[in-house]
């Protein structure tokens, strides 16, 4: 059994909006395991980023977060996760953002931004912190790292900045790394380099990587496991091989349908369109959120709860119409 580094059950995030309570994350179960690269995929707006923010404790003040179980680094975060996570951020769990251009402070040197976290959390002096920064910059492939510590972010290209962000995330030697669409804002050729780097770091450092993306090419190239999110819930999760070869949820199948050979998807291809629209997330929702767009949908699908079929290997699917082991496609 691989070590579970993060375990959250029935995670719910709702936001107060002008139009009422927006239930953006509606009962997500998620484990991050040592050595695993879990890809969280789903259409834009399905709640991936808010899930990541909840795991980092970075939700806005007007967000409400609850869970039945939230364990990380031996701490029980079920109560007051946001404030307890403030102590874990950087050291136990770190995050990389989508746009490296805006994620680095333009007015502070790269060295300052890399070292400020560990100087505080580990009490390192400047020399030790700089040495760590040089080590990390070297690891992420920034050449001549000593000299670059004194430079400002605008002296670096987009790809280099994302490398710096990765180095910054690694500074506290966290075991869990969350990357929210880390390549979306980059050129296609740079995307591949950054993904390769993330994959390498994940295996050499034994990280547990939660990679959020809406790019199935990214998933195919890096994931060990895949969780498919729809309207605030994970509707199917499986090892990557299994998911690509035998998707079970109608939504997952819809996503994969446009791809001729599963697993060798050209990079950069985004989720194919599925007819119909994502349901609004304001207020309570009953039954399966996908039923209106689903070819198999029937009146049964409007009832609660949606049955979950799982196996011991950690694969599960939430659907009235499919059962695991059933022939697919």
């Amino acid at each position: 059994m691989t070590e579970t580094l993060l375990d959250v059950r029935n995670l719910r995030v709702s936001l107060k909006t002008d139009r009422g309570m927006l239930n953006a994350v509606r009962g997500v179960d998620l484990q991050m395991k040592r050595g695993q690269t879990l890809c969280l995929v789903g259409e834009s707006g399905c709640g991936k980023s808010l899930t990541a923010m909840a795991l980092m404790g970075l939700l806005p003040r007007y967000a409400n977060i609850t869970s039945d179980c939230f364990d990380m680094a031996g701490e029980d975060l079920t109560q007051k996760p946001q404030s307890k996570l403030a102590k874990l951020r950087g050291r136990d769990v770190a995050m990389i953002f989508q746009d490296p251009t805006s994620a680095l402070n333009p007015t502070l040197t790269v060295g300052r931004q890399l070292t400020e976290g560990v100087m505080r959390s580990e009490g390192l002096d400047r020399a030790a912190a700089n040495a760590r920064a040089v080590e990390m910059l070297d690891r992420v492939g920034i050449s001549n790292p000593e000299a670059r510590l004194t430079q400002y972010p605008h002296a670096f290209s987009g790809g280099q900045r994302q490398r710096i962000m990765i180095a910054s995330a690694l500074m506290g030697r966290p075991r869990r790394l969350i990357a929210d669409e880390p390549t979306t804002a980059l050129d296609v050729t740079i995307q591949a380099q950054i993904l390769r780097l993330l994959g390498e770091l994940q295996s050499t450092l034994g990280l547990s990587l939660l990679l959020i993306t809406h790019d199935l090419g990214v998933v195919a190239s890096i994931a060990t496991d895949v969780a498919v999110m729809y309207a605030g819930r994970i509707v199917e999760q499986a090892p990557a091989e299994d998911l690509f070869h035998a998707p079970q949820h109608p939504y997952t199948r819809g996503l994969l349908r446009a791809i001729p050979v599963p697993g060798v998807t050209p990079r950069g291809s985004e989720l194919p369109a599925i007819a119909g629209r994502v349901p609004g997330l304001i207020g309570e929702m009953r039954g399966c959120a996908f039923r209106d767009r689903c070819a198999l949908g029937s009146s049964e699908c409007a009832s609660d709860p949606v049955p979950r079929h799982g196996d011991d290997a950690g694969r599960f699917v939430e659907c009235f119409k499919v059962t695991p082991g059933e022939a697919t496609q």
Partner: protein
Amino acid sequence: MLAFIAKRLVVAFCVCVTVSAISFALMFLSGDPAIAIAGAGGRAQDAEAIRIAYGFDRPLIVQYLDWVGSALTGDLGQSIYFNIPVSEIIGNRISVTMWLGVLSFLLALVVAVPLGIAAALRPNGWIDRIALVLAVTGQAIPSFWLGLMAIVVFGVWYGWVPISGAKTWQGFILPVIVLSYYAMPAMMRITRSGMIDVLATDYVRAARAKGLPMRVVIFRHALRNAVLPLVSLAAVQLGLLLSGSIVIESVFALNGLGRLAWESLLRSDLPVVQAIILILSLLYVALTTFADILNAVLDPRLRGAN
């Protein structure tokens, strides 16, 4: 950085030359200065004598260079009305205005920045609401009314401060407060909106993701970026305050630059007006240049090459 400063100073110098040329030209704006000095009923011979006495018969460029040269040595000419050196008149008045302006500016800044930050941390919270009310009233209530009210309440009823004049430092209390209340809202609002924008940026979120405490995130990461627009605005505000407020100076009977400019205009005392315009223009040039350099110190992107 040094190259940037050098470049800004060259630009500032060019602006100074232009500004001085324009203030010099003001002398001739109202027609022949010699006739103006001779007065409406003056005879042609008088005007001619004045023209030679004041050197108006020489080529313009010579007159300009002569004027600039004297100005640089502190000789701003003779007041037509008082017949004493302009520098003497201005010297008497300028310290009142400078004290009033600088103190009001500092008070406004000391109130505006913390209030703007606190308001931005919780938009629509109670601090934000109080700040909004203060800002709106500060902008809506005319300074002269506020000044008169302050005099009536604190000067006449309670007798805490002198009613008018600047003979003692207590005389400055009310005008400084009234003037700073006038200058504070804009600086507070720009701090607040800059802070709200910056707090929503990815780099602030990234700073929090590193585990930095909120205090460090606010002061190291957010404030530095949020004050960039404030620096430019504050330079203009300080320029305005140092120009002297005719209203405040009149209400509180302070003999400052604002009133001097106004009175000199009414008396057609052109050399005085000209000197005031020159001094204030140069002051603006200095302030905006300083603001640009300060912004470049805060934001390396503005320095050009790294």
